[in-house]
């Protein structure tokens, strides 16, 4: 069986055959694809009891997105706002991204700004796919997996071209006037691998330059330079043992100049991981991983006349060891693990300038297949923190197949989010408005309890339809409050219930045309049964892809419609976030992309983002119509 391709059967007479060639065609619905996020072990998508949405490589290629923030914002139920405080604020199913655990190859991403991972810092070129699991998942992942998990999976050695180079120029001037290459953004990306006896070596380099572009002007920055350099070595020690070393270094430099203030921001993120995997004849699979992440961010404000206004530095060091054990018992499977980590946070904005936290956790999960139709999963995780109470997180999932192509899935689980260093220890004065924020060291983890119920119909060659209901109840939510005028802090008080229905549909209209649709309805209410600000009740996404019969031209259209909603805004007088006075009207976004395959080595792509030029100066999207051109070359084993 070849994953992602249609199975073919042919009968031959042995006497007359010297060579047999099969040309496989791709499955439209790739239910045989391996997914990992819902269970933390590689499983065929079709067999996972936990509903997992996959943004595939084809979806990524057709999206025209430059980074993960761009890509996710095209999904139904996901909204994205660019904050001038830095980074992208993602809402998934109406929830702030701090309640969604975001992983890169199954590992947490260090370095947050305002408690959120900056998704615009994760460039798309080396991403193979994105897996999204909805509902509480702390039984496997611990903190932050309160409402879901997004796992960004990079291309592995088997998926990379031998050498893959792409260059892209993007211009956000909506009239497509030529502003020269000094303005707009330019990206060059190189990915490749080299097999060398028992070693497999892969490398990646990515440079993203943004100059005088609308996407950064709104945050009063003139230039942004993002650089990623990384590599990995896979060493097959023998048939049963494998050693992997992975390093990724990310740098970001931002500069802004004006008559009154010059700013410099330097972000450095290093990730090193060493993984040892062994398999035994008794079907034990043991994987040990040592993961070290360092993050630093330095922000300097200097007046043009030389006065230093601000010099803020934040450092975060994260060291984690984990052992993951997997054992198959016939059709059943046990997954268990131990994780221990130590995190050190240094910042001019936290009490004493330095804080430390350690965690030890133990988790186990048993996947039971009673017969072909029914599979269940039971999991439990125990987290013991050095600074606050321990947390127990259970989860149960069930999948039942009926008739030929129908599946019913349901899961129940509990999740939590440990309070951040900033929420517990911030000691900061807002210079402009003279209010202070102090942390609350007595904060306890926020908790959630959620259920998902879904039904799915798949015809692998033609269409797939899934309908899912989900509800997550939150307790102990951390919110800011006023201790006294001008003095703010945090407390565990808030309750909320997030409910929704998601309908997803994929249809292969013909050999040349396929389409994908998603409808997301959300009802998020607080403890007083009032709608939570920023809840987008209804959003619809649609995509269509046309392949010219000779397959040398591909045309994609991605659309998103966002229903009317009441956004949230900060009232400086009350010192609270409140509903904006007016509802925002419904709006739609259209993204177009076409790719021409020039020959086996070169592709050229052109696209228009936000083609209908919709902007909202206060709540986003902030950048209107923009256009890009991309040239890519691929040297593969076949065409070298």
């Amino acid at each position: 069986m070849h994953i992602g391709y249609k199975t073919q059967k042919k009968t031959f007479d042995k006497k007359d055959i010297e060579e047999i060639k099969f040309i496989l065609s791709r499955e439209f619905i790739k239910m045989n694809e391996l997914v990992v996020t819902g269970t933390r072990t590689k499983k065929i998508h079709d067999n996972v009891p936990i509903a997992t949405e996959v943004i595939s490589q084809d979806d990524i290629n057709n999206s025209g997105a430059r980074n993960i923030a761009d890509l996710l914002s095209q999904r139904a139920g996901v909204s994205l706002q660019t904050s001038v405080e830095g980074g992208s604020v993602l809402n998934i199913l109406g929830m702030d991204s701090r309640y969604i655990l975001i992983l890169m190859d199954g590992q947490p991403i260090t370095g947050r700004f305002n408690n959120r991972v900056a998704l615009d810092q994760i460039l798309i070129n080396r991403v193979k796919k994105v897996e999204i699991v909805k509902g509480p998942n702390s039984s496997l992942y611990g903190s932050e997996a309160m409402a879901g998990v997004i796992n960004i999976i990079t291309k592995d050695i088997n998926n990379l071209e031998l050498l893959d180079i792409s260059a892209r120029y993007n211009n956000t001037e909506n009239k497509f006037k030529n502003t020269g290459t000094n303005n707009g953004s330019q990206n060059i990306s190189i990915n490749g691998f080299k097999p060398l006896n028992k070693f497999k070596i892969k490398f990646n380099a990515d440079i993203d330059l943004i100059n005088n572009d609308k996407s950064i002007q709104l945050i009063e920055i003139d230039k942004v330079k993002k650089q990623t350099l990384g590599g990995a070595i896979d060493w097959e020690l023998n048939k049963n043992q494998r050693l992997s070393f992975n390093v990724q270094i990310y740098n970001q430099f931002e500069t802004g100049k004006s008559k009154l203030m010059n700013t410099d921001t330097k972000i450095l993120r290093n990730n090193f991981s060493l993984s040892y995997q062994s398999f035994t004849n008794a079907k034990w699979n043991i994987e040990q991983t040592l993961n070290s992440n360092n993050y630093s961010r330095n922000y300097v404000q200097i007046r043009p006349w030389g006065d230093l206004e601000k010099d803020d530095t934040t450092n975060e060091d994260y060291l984690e060891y984990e052992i993951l054990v997997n054992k198959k018992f016939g059709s059943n499977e046990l997954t268990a693990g131990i994780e221990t980590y130590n995190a050190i946070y240094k910042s001019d904005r936290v009490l004493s300038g330095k804080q430390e936290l350690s965690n030890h956790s133990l988790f186990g999960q048993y996947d039971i297949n009673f017969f072909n139709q029914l599979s269940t999963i039971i999991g439990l995780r125990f987290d013991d923190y050095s600074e606050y109470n321990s947390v127990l997180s259970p989860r149960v999932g069930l999948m039942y197949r009926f008739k030929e192509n129908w599946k019913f899935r349901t899961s129940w689980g509990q999740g939590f989010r440990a309070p951040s260093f900033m929420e517990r220890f911030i000691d900061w004065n807002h210079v402009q408005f003279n209010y202070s924020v102090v942390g609350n060291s007595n904060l306890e983890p926020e908790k959630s309890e959620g259920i998902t119920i879904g039904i799915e119909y798949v015809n692998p060659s033609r269409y797939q339809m899934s309908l899912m209901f989900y509800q997550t109840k939150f307790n102990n939510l951390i919110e800011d409050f006023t201790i006294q005028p001008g003095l703010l802090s945090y407390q565990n008080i808030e309750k909320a219930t997030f409910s929704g229905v998601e309908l997803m549909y994929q249809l292969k209209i013909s050999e040349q045309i396929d389409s994908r649709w998603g409808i997301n309805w959300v009802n998020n209410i607080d403890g007083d049964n009032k709608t939570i600000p920023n809840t987008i009740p209804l959003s619809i996404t649609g995509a269509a892809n046309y392949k010219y019969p000779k397959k040398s031209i591909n045309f994609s259209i991605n659309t998103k419609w966002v229903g009317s909603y009441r956004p949230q805004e900060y009232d400086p007088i009350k010192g609270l976030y409140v509903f904006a006075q007016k509802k925002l009207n419904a709006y739609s976004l259209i993204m177009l992309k076409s790719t021409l395959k020039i020959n086996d080595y070169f592709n050229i792509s052109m696209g228009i983002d936000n083609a209908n030029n919709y902007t909202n100066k206060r709540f986003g999207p902030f950048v209107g119509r923009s256009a890009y051109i991309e040239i890519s070359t691929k040297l593969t084993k076949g065409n070298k």
Partner: protein
Amino acid sequence: MKRLLFGVSIIMMLPFIGCDDNKADETKNLMNIIEVTTDNVNDGPYYFNFIESAKNSASWHLSYENLDAGGGNYIPSFSLSNAVMLTIDNSSKFEEITTIPVTNLFSSSNGKLSYGGDNEVLTYDMQVHKISVSNSNYIIYDTVTYKVFKIHFDEYSGGVAIFRYAELTSN
């Protein structure tokens, strides 16, 4: 032939285009636009006298100070003296305003420039915690000296603001 005519017409137009630019430059020079960078409002209130073209806390037209917005919050805000009347001209670019508006357009300036006022200079974006300056052209009339000034606020950052002004005369 068409190309030749087109080329000749372009060459003939060049002097006119050039004259337009010169006129604009001359206007700017005649106007004597002055740029002022304020002190940091967090260090204390700032008062400016347009006639003296200098800071003057005793006799001033424009004040810049932190306004008590309640809840312990202070918001930087500009305001005008009670002796000053105000009108707004957004129909022209700041540099192109050369004449005094008709008198009945001016009204009392009380509170109009300050936080929450009809024509607030510094706007506080509640969504993104950002203070930005209005792009309006403010024209003030000093009821004591009968002098008229046009003012434009260009930038605000971390308690400091930049504004430009020039006196408008009836000539």
